[in-house]
C-alpha cells in the first residue's frame, strides 16, 4: 500500500475508533450503574494525571514524584471558584471556618455578575464557569510547574526525585498553614463541590481526549523528539543543540497544567476538596500506572491506569470475609493457574525443560489446597471466617511484580499502539529487494546465492506459466 493510502486508512480507522469509544460510553451511560460510571470517570481522571506524569517520567526521563502537589493546586482552585453560594454561606456561618470575606468572594459567578454578564451567572451555565475555573487551576498549576522545573536544571536522577517529592509535600503542607488557610479553609476543606462534571463520562473523557491528543502530538513532534533525546542522553542532546533548561521546564509546565486539570476533575468526582485526598499515594498510583503500562508510551499508560483503577474500584469482594476453606480453594486455583501460565510462557519462550521442579511443587501445593478445601470443608477450623484487609493493594503489588519480571519495560514498553502495528506493517524491516541490496553491501559473495535463488524462482514461474498455457 502506498504511504498516502495508509494515511487515509489510518485517519478512517482513527475516526472509527473514536466512534466506537463514543458508542461504548453511551452503552455504559445507558446501563445506568452509578458504580460503573464512576469507575470509568475515575479512569479518565487518573488517566489524565498519569498521561501527564508520563511526559516528565517517560518522555523526558526525569523521575518526578510531586504530581499530587500540582493536582492539589488545580483541585483547590477549581473548587474555590465554582463553589455554590449555599456552600459558601455554610462555610461563612461555620464557627470553625478559616476563610474570610475576600476569599469567600472568589467566585467566577461574582466576577461574571460584576462584569454585567448575568446570563453566564445562572445555574444553567455552571458548565462554562467550570471550564473557566479548571483552566485557571491548570494555568496556576503550570506556574508552579515552572518553579519546580528550575531545580531540574542542576539536579539529576534520585536527587531530583527527592526535590520534586519535597515540592509536592510542601504544596500540601502550605495549603494547611495559616497563610493559605483563608483560601483552602485549612484542614476542613470544602464540601459541596459541584460533582456533575467529575462524575460525568462525557466531561472526563472529553478532557482525557484533549490530554491524549496533545501528548501524542507532542511526542511525535520535533519538541517530543528533543525531550526523548534528553531522556536518552542528556550530554549528547546538549551537544546537538537542544536547550536543556528550556525543554525540561517546558515538560514540567505542560505536565503540571494537565495535572491541574486532573485535580479539578478529581475534586469534582469526590465532591469535596480536602487535603487528605492529595496524599503522596496518589502520585504512587500514577507511577504504578506509568511503569506497568510502559514508561513513555501514552497508550501503555492508559492500559496501566485501567488496571490500577479497576482493581481499586472493583476490589471490594477481595476484602470481604470468607471461610478458610473458600480461601484454600481460591489459593489452590491461583496456584494451578500460575503453573499453567508458567507452562505456556516456557513453551512460547522455548525454555527447556518444559516442566521443571518448581512447577511440580506449585501444582502439588495447589492440588493439596484444593483437596483440603473440598473434602475437609466440614472440619471445625475450616469453617471459621477470615478477612484480608488490604488484599487490593496486595493484588496490585503482585501484578506489578509479575509484570516487572516478565516485561520490565511495562506492558507496551516504549512502543505506542498504532494501526501499522496492528497490521504488522514494519518500516524497519527490509523488503526482499532491499534485503538483497543489503546482502550485497555486506558481502557481495552472498548475493550470488540470492541471485541463484531468484533465477530458480523465475524459471519455476515461467515453467508454471507454460504448463498453464498447455
Amino acid at each position, binding site marked *: 500500500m502506498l504511504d498516502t493510502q495508509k494515511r487515509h486508512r489510518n485517519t478512517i480507522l482513527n475516526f472509527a475508533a473514536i466512534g466506537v469509544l463514543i458508542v461504548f460510553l453511551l452503552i455504559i451511560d445507558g446501563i445506568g450503574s452509578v458504580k460503573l460510571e464512576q469507575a470509568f470517570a475515575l479512569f479518565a481522571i487518573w488517566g489524565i494525571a498519569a498521561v501527564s506524569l508520563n511526559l516528565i517520567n517517560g518522555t523526558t526521563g526525569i523521575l518526578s514524584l510531586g504530581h499530587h502537589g500540582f493536582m492539589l493546586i488545580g483541585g483547590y482552585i477549581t473548587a474555590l471558584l465554582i463553589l455554590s453560594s449555599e456552600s459558601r454561606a455554610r462555610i461563612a456561618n461555620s464557627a470553625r471556618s478559616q476563610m474570610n470575606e475576600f476569599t469567600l468572594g472568589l467566585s467566577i459567578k461574582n466576577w461574571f455578575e460584576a462584569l454585567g454578564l448575568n446570563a453566564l451567572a445562572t445555574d444553567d451555565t455552571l458548565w462554562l464557569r467550570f471550564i473557566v475555573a479548571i483552566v485557571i487551576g491548570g494555568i496556576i498549576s503550570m506556574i508552579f510547574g515552572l518553579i519546580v522545573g528550575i531545580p531540574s536544571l542542576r539536579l539529576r536522577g534520585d536527587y531530583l526525585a527527592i526535590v520534586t517529592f519535597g515540592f509536592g509535600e510542601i504544596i500540601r503542607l502550605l495549603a494547611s498553614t495559616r497563610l493559605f488557610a483563608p483560601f483552602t479553609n485549612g484542614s476542613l476543606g470544602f464540601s459541596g463541590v459541584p460533582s456533575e462534571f467529575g462524575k460525568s463520562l462525557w466531561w472526563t473523557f472529553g478532557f482525557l481526549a484533549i490530554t491524549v491528543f496533545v501528548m501524542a502530538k*507532542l511526542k511525535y*513532534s*520535533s519538541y517530543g523528539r528533543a525531550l526523548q533525546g534528553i531522556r536518552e542522553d542528556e550530554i549528547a542532546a546538549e*551537544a546537538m*543543540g537542544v536547550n536543556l533548561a528550556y525543554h525540561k521546564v517546558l515538560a514540567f509546565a505542560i505536565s503540571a497544567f494537565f495535572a491541574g486539570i486532573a485535580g479539578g476533575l478529581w475534586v469534582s468526582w469526590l465532591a469535596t476538596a480536602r487535603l487528605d485526598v492529595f496524599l503522596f499515594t496518589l502520585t504512587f498510583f500514577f507511577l504504578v500506572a506509568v511503569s506497568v503500562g510502559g514508561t513513555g508510551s501514552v497508550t501503555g499508560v492508559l492500559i496501566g491506569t485501567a488496571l490500577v483503577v479497576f482493581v481499586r474500584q472493583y476490589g471490594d469482594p477481595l476484602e470481604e470475609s470468607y471461610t478458610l476453606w473458600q480461601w484454600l480453594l481460591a489459593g489452590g486455583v491461583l496456584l494451578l493457574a500460575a503453573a499453567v501460565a508458567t507452562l505456556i510462557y516456557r513453551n512460547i519462550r522455548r525454555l527447556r525443560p518444559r516442566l521443571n521442579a518448581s512447577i511440580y511443587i506449585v501444582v502439588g501445593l495447589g492440588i493439596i489446597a484444593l483437596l483440603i478445601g473440598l473434602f475437609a470443608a466440614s472440619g471445625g477450623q475450616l469453617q471459621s471466617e477470615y478477612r484480608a484487609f488490604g488484599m487490593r493493594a496486595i493484588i496490585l503489588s503482585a501484578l506489578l511484580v509479575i509484570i516487572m519480571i516478565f516485561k520490565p519495560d511495562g506492558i507496551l514498553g516504549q512502543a505506542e499502539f498504532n494501526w501499522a502495528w496492528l497490521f504488522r506493517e514494519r518500516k*524497519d524491516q*527490509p523488503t526482499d529487494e532491499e534485503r538483497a541490496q543489503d546482502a550485497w*553491501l555486506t558481502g557481495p559473495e552472498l548475493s550470488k546465492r540470492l541471485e541463484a535463488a531468484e533465477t530458480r524462482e523465475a524459471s519455476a514461474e515461467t515453467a508454471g506459466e507454460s504448463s498453464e498455457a498447455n
Partner: protein
Amino acid sequence: MAMLEIDDINKSFGGLQAITDLNLKVNEGEIVSVIGPNGAGKTTLFNLITGVYKPDVGDIRFEGNSITGLKPDQIVDRGIARTFQNLRLFTNLTVLENVLIPQHHKLKSTWFSAVFRTPGYLRREQQMREQALEKLSFFGPRLMSFRLYQPVYVLSYANRRRTEMARAMATGAKLLLLDEPSAGMNPKETAEITQIIKRMRDEGGYTILLVEHKMNLVSEISDRVVVLDYGQKIAEGDYQDVVNDPKVIEAYLGKKAEGDEAQNDQLTEGDGRTS
C-alpha cells in the same frame, strides 16, 4: 581571519594541568588532525571548544566572535558540532530521529504550533526530513530505506559511527569536531570513512578538526597536523614534517638512553617473533 582561533587557553582539573597555553588556528575548508599519546589532552581540547568545560584562562573565537563560556547548545547554534569518542547516540530512537533531533534548535515554531501541526510547522518538519536524508545519503545506501526506521541499538558499530557523523552534520554546523571517527572500524571501513571525511570537506563544505590514532587516515587527509603531549602543543605542520620531528618521536616512543640501542634491538626482534 581563521575560522576558529584558540588563544593561550589553560585548563586544569585540580592539580592536573590538562591544557597549557595552547594556541590553535583552523582556517575555513581545512582538515586539521590533532594527534598525541593517550592523556595528551585531545578530548579535553574538544570539550573546551564545544563548551562542556570552560577554559581557566584564554579565549576561543569562532568566526571572530568569542565563544568562551557559552553553553554547548549555544555553541552548536553558532556552528560547531562534534562527535563523541565513545558514541553517544540516542540508542532507543530510530536513525531518522537521531538525525532530526540536531535540527531542532533551528526550528522557529513554538511547541504549540508543533502540537497542532500548523502548516508552517509541517513545512519545517518536511525540510528537516529532507535535510536528514541528505546528510545520511553521504554514507551511501547503508543508512537509507528501511534502516531509517530502525532503532540505533540494532545497528552495527560502524553504522553507529556513521549515524553519529550524520547527526553532527545535521546540526547545520560549519566546523565539525570528529573524535576518533574510525575507532573500532576494520581497515576497509577506515578507508571508506577516510574518503567520506574528504568528501565532507570537498562536497559538504565543512571544516574539520579531528582527533585520530590511525596514522594512515591522518596522513591521507590532513592538511595540517597538530601534536599534543601533556597538554602542550609540541609540533604543528605537514604530516611528514611532524612525524619526523624528534620531539614527536620522543613523545610517542620515549627518549633513547645512551647505550640503550642493543636493548631496543632485542625488543623489536622479540616483537617480530611474537607477531
